């Protein structure tokens, strides 16, 4: 058994463009990317928007006008997907911590579910929010 693993050809360097992540690994790196994105959006925009939205009717109007431009619609969509992906993947990790869905096939199925549910919710909430 040990021999078999040693004889297998393994990559000797970590070229990110040649590594094919298994599906749960893909969901995992998206969890990290979406988390980093959420942090940046929170610091760059989120708190400022929250303050603007509540300061006065004028600032609220100015904010909604700004957010209706195509660029900020994209920003909102990115934030929404990040939140929802992070949310769904996070619930998956909480379940994995409790040893729910540990088996490979279940882990794969739940990875697909995370991707699908977060994208579907992004489309559903995004279409309501933006248009």
């Amino acid at each position, binding site marked *: 058994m040990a021999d078999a693993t040693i004889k297998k050809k393994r990559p000797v360097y970590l070229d990110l463009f040649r590594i094919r992540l298994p599906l749960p690994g893909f969901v995992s790196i998206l969890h990290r990317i979406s*988390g980093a994105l959420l942090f940046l959006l929170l610091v760059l925009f989120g708190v400022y928007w929250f303050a603007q939205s509540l300061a006065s009717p004028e600032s609220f109007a100015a904010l909604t006008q700004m957010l209706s431009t195509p660029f900020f619609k994209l920003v909102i969509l990115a934030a929404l997907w990040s939140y929802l992906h992070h949310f769904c993947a996070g619930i998956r990790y909480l379940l994995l911590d409790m040893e729910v869905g540990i088996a490979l096939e279940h882990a794969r199925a739940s990875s697909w579910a995370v991707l699908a549910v977060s994208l579907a919710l992004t489309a559903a909430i995004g279409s309501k929010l933006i248009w």
Partner: protein
Amino acid sequence: MVKRIVTGAHYGFRDWLMQRITAVVMAVYAPVFLIALYANSPVTYESWKSLFAQTWMQLATFLFLVSLCLHAWVGVRDILMDYIKPVGIRLAMEVLVIIALVGCGGWAVETLWRT
């Protein structure tokens, strides 16, 4: 098997636990917020302001904000520990993250209670 002397230090368990507790708080807040928003729709300045003028919403949002800052701190620190190896640069970035989070958190809480 590495034998560690556990007294006097913690090995990330507290952060690990914190990450999960704050996650649960935010996971509960998100659908509650969406439902409250939907109940208050259409969203105008008046409905948006009155939503955050309610004490329960202020408290819930406050808990959310505290959880968010703690959660983001653990998460971003994890990322920095993985990718930023020079200690000085990492420390500087960690300090910037703390300043950003405390600043944003303070501003958001102030906004919340000014309403």
